[in-house]
């Protein structure tokens, strides 16, 4: 499903060179739940950017859902991204659109018919427990609610992969637990979930595969890992 082969990512700003990732190798199979842990600057976000095609590797090869990221053209990015749902710490909702429109947008962008949109969007919002706030704008929602809209939007295209980049970073413990529960439920339905976080409690409780990054290198990759940095 996701394959990183000797991947390095080096950023050059003027004459300053900084290595974000160095010789990374891992493989994620369908149905897996993988946590990506590491301190700030360890390279978690770079891994995510590479998976969604926002960046290209300096060295090595990346395959995501049969797309070769190295050779992916700008015009083919939308096709790749319709197979990947992404949620972020800062939610990244479209502020001028209601919860319903935010979720519907992903389907509309994929050119799905209106009849499907009218059927699936309320279902997705119901799944994340937001049926009653469908027509609210993001500014009228709490942090937890915003993240649930983001999850509904990420899931609406039935992606093969769901990437969650610090999804609970801005949430209280109660909402954090709710979001993690949702991610597990999504994983049970067959979607690969990649969770990038530095929340020790979550990782220890999950008892799933953990890839630990430090200074751009993988220092541990355990089947049932703990947060141990």
């Amino acid at each position, binding site marked *: 499903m996701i394959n990183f082969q000797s991947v390095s990512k080096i950023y050059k700003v003027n004459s300053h060179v900084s290595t974000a990732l160095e010789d990374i190798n891992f493989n994620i199979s369908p149905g897996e739940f993988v946590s990506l842990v590491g301190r700030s600057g360890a390279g978690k976000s770079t891994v995510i950017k590479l998976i*969604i095609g926002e960046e290209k590797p300096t060295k090595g090869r990346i395959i995501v859902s049969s797309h070769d990221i190295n050779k992916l053209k700008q015009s083919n990015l939308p096709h790749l991204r319709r197979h990947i749902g992404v949620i972020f710490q800062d939610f990244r909702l479209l*502020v001028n659109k209601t919860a319903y429109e935010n979720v519907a947008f992903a389907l509309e*962008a994929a050119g799905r018919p209106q009849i499907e949109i009218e059927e699936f969007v309320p279902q997705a919002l119901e799944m994340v427990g937001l049926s009653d706030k469908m027509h609210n704008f993001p500014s009228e929602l709490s942090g937890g609610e915003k993240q649930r809209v983001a999850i509904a939007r990420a899931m609406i295209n039935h992606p093969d992969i769901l990437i969650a980049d610090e999804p609970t970073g801005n949430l209280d413990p109660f909402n954090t637990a709710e979001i993690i529960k949702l991610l597990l439920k999504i994983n049970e339905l067959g979607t690969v979930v990649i969770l990038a976080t530095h929340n020790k409690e979550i990782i220890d409780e999950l008892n799933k595969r953990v890839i630990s990054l430090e200074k751009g290198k993988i220092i541990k990759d355990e089947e049932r890992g703990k947060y141990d940095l």
Partner: protein
Amino acid sequence: MFTILSRIIKYGILGFRRGGWLSAATVAIMVLTLLVFEGLIFFNVLTKIAIESFQDKIDISVYFKAEAPEDDILKIKSSLESLAEVKKVEYISRDKALEIFQAKHEKDQTISEALDELKDNPLLASLNIKAYNSSDYAAINNYLSADSFKKSVEKISYAQNSLVIERLTKIISTAKKAGVFLTILFAAVAVLITFNTIRLAIYSYREEIGIMRLVGASNSFIQGPYIFEGIIYGLIAGVLSFIIALPLIYYTAPYIRVLIPEMSLWFYLLSNIFTLLFYQIIFGIVLGAVSSVIAIRKYLRV
């Protein structure tokens, strides 16, 4: 295709409605731009008519010796008419000249009596020549000064009026150049201001554009609503600026008429109302759409 297009239109309209003050400010700037644009159209019409009216007042006359046979004069007339620079030649015979003179001085008894005293008609036959361009009079004058015409021609009025004609010619040519320069200058300023306003509006959406890319929207699907929003700006601004221009023109028309009696601005507006409105709207739409396309391109590379 139709589904995508209808979604683009829907989001364009929604974006405009929810844009609030930003939409209003953009439309306001575009209204000003289009008023400048409309002002330029009227300025050019006014300059053209003013120049034409000036030019119409300039002419030269060639007077023929009393003994010159009419046939010779008519030959010169037709040879003048064959010149490319000449617009119109009018022949005024000695009798006709006298008639005009008498009619003009009908109330002046001294002149009437003086004319009666003279047995012979003292006035000369003449050709009154109008050129297309005031700068052509010198050439016509040279043509008439040729030796072959010397035996019939008594005098050419150009010599007396050449200074005035040259000055007017210079004024007209300067006015034309100034008109083109001002039109380009104001149009450029107006277009740049509008472009920057739309660029700022889209700049405020840059994060949204990035998010749309992440959600898997294609560039055309992202661009479409913003371009359509630009079209709405242009359409509304086009109509609004036209409505604002109506009373402005109505009230300035009489003042313009004092300066250029041939010109009724209000009448010009009424007789060209649909063409003007059409230009205004088309210009607004093109300006809005093109500005949006250029402004958004930068943010689509996520």
